[in-house]
């Protein structure tokens, strides 16, 4: 019998491991990757899973026709931010990546110029809405293809509002405060996130701020947050929180208001169509008396914060032409329309042509009609000033939502909250 000692085993295993490590090393992986010329897309995993399935299936069809392959990686919003930062810093990452808000401004230098394909798609589809240009055009160059708007509206209980004398949703914030006070007394308060909810809290706080005439910067990018209009917005929100809203919204994430509404804890919140979608799916009985309405108007009119989802091509990609062709494809009528319809009004088109299409949910589902026209009235970060990397950072740092939240919770006076926010904004814009 061959004697095989412990020492022999250690030698053999260490050499084997060394070989394995070489094969699995970054160099080894790079060698493998170089042989795989597939296009790669990192995108947000839609809460409506059939959208993800359709995207995968249609993308594979495109890839077959284009004589290539496509790898799609679905992830959360934080995952998108991480990947974008890593890919921009290292030059290695997916070819295409979804972005939110005005991230194209923040990463303009790392993104390829896609003006040719974006202009072409816009022309074919009736032109882009201004909000698409705000979010994706940097110094006259399109740095991302606008894909859809995450349509937001008020969702409310018609039955509960009717009980306190409101047959229609109040058209103004003051009207909503009045209704909300009665609703809270009835045990059916309102609920709007003032916490670190990227979608809902930013939508609520910025919309209130802008519709009262306030803003972070003006058209010349001068910081204008410390103003009577901002104070008015904060005073209003503080009163709304105390008299009409449920407590604990300062800790609400993007799903908390959904859960609160579906549990019957609140009579109204702001959200995309996901609440109605989930309620219908789970056959919750009060969905029959649930409806959507436009955001209320303030003293400065009806101005709404809107979240643009766009897809950029990384400048380091070796497949830029294929990536542009893919962008053209996903914004074509035969792809965008059926996929958009599946999302029950969540995905709102950023070009003019599809809005009036009878297949779009707001044109046949009365409960979704309030979403129509959002692309016209919505603005992205930086309004009334210019969208920029700094404006994007103000949003992602929750400066404005913290300002509103701290006032609502009584953690800071209005003056202190504004002063804290201004200090942070100045630091961001000056750096």
């Amino acid at each position, binding site marked *: 019998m061959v004697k095989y000692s412990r*020492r022999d085993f*250690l*030698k053999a295993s*260490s050499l084997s*491991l*060394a070989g394995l*490590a070489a094969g699995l090393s970054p160099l080894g992986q790079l060698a493998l990757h170089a042989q795989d010329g597939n296009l790669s897309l990192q995108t947000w995993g839609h809460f409506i899973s059939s959208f993800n399935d359709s995207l995968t299936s249609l993308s594979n069809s495109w890839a077959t026709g284009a004589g290539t392959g496509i790898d799609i990686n679905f992830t959360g919003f934080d995952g998108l*931010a*991480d990947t974008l*930062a890593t890919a*921009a*810093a290292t030059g290695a990452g997916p070819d295409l990546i979804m972005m939110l808000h005005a991230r194209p401004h*923040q*990463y*303009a*230098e*790392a993104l390829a110029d896609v003006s040719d394909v974006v202009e072409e798609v816009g022309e074919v589809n009736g032109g882009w809405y201004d909000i698409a240009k705000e979010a994706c055009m940097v110094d006259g160059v399109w740095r991302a293809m606008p894909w859809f708007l995450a349509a937001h509206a008020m969702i409310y209980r018609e039955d509960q509002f009717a009980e306190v004398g409101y047959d229609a949703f109040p058209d103004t914030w003051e009207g909503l405060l009045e209704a909300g006070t009665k609703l809270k007394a009835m045990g059916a308060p309102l609920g709007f996130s003032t*916490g*670190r909810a990227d979608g809902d809290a930013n939508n609520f706080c910025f919309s209130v701020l802008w519709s009262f005439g306030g803003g972070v910067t003006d058209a010349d990018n001068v910081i204008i947050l410390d103003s009577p209009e901002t104070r008015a917005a904060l005073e209003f929100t503080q009163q709304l929180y105390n008299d009409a809203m449920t*407590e*604990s*919204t*300062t*800790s*609400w*994430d993007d799903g*908390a208001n959904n*859960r*609160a509404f579906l*549990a019957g*804890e609140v009579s109204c919140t702001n959200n995309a169509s996901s609440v109605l979608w989930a309620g219908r799916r789970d056959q919750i009985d009060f969905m029959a008396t649930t409806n959507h309405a436009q955001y209320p108007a303030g003293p400065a009119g009806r101005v709404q914060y809107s979240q643009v989802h766009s897809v950029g091509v990384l400048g380091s990609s070796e497949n830029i032409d294929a990536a542009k062709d893919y962008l053209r494809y996903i914004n074509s009528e035969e792809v965008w329309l059926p996929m958009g319809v599946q999302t029950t009004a969540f995905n709102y088109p950023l070009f003019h042509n599809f809005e009036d299409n009878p297949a779009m949910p707001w044109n046949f589902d009365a409960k979704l009609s309030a979403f129509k026209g959002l692309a016209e009235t919505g603005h992205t970060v930086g309004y009334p000033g210019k969208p920029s*990397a700094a404006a994007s*950072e103000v949003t*992602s*740092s*929750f400066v404005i939502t*913290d300002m509103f*939240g*701290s006032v609502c*919770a009584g*953690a*800071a006076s209005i003056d202190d909250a504004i002063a*804290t926010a201004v*200090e*942070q904004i100045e*630091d*961001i814009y000056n*750096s």
Partner: protein
Amino acid sequence: MQDSSVSLNIMTSKIHDSDTLLKRLNRWFDHEQRLGYLMVAPALIVLLLLVAYPFILSIGLSFTDTRIAQESTGAFIGLENYAKLWDRTLFRDKVMINTLIYTVGAVPMKLVLGLGMAILLNRRFPLRGVIRGLILIPWVVPTSLSMVIFRWLFEPTLSVLNYMLAGIGLESVQWLGTPQNAIFSVLMVNIWRGTPFFAVVLLAALQSVPKDQLEAAEIDGANIWHRFQHVTIPTIFPVMVVATLFSVVRTFAEMEIVWVLTRGGPFNGTHMIGTYAYQQAIQSAKIGEGAAVSLFFFPFLAAIVFFQLWYLQRRDA
């Protein structure tokens, strides 16, 4: 005949040469020190590539104004990032203070609870082996997974904890709704997650306490507390110090618990070094500043590590 004998000689010579090479290789690997270095080499390479290199790179980045995807940045600016952080109210009054409260609040509790657990687990009782394994669950479950569960426990509308409080007639708590409640909540979660580490490490230390010393102390009339104070604690003290050291460094750099539960909110009430560094470096693409945030306390932590290790060495001497 002559050709075949020459071929045979050549073959024999080749076989002899390969034998010699194999033997040479064998002898080379038989050298204990060399084999030792070979064994350590993979881990060392990983440490160098994934720890030392990023660490040195971070130090370099913290002295620059580098922003991701902005080629015009990257200039050396000395200590400007650190100075800016010190001048920033948010960093000084929230991030730093929150980090200190979090660390000072969590580590002693983990030590005390971990020691208590270790003492209990050192005794004989039924299913001791199973329980020893089960207590590790908080520590081994991936943090982001366990934080999803805690997110549900603290959920404003559907909180199981509030449901239980309501069941005994108490009011609901906004677990993450105010800065005070939120920092208390994340502190409790950190203690839940980190206590098993102390328990396991101190259990191992307790098992190395010489039984004859404990028996001798008992014979000399020492009660349980005296034996614990004068025999057990001095024996396990070095292990306690090292475990505490690891925990201080780990807790200082905490990111996952806070980010998943509160993202630094409400109103920056739970923003810590780890979460603020992530926000600046990744979300705001200011990687130079983010590096400065993560390294801000490095001299302080290095001093703690140095002092503790020096104290241990002195004590052993």
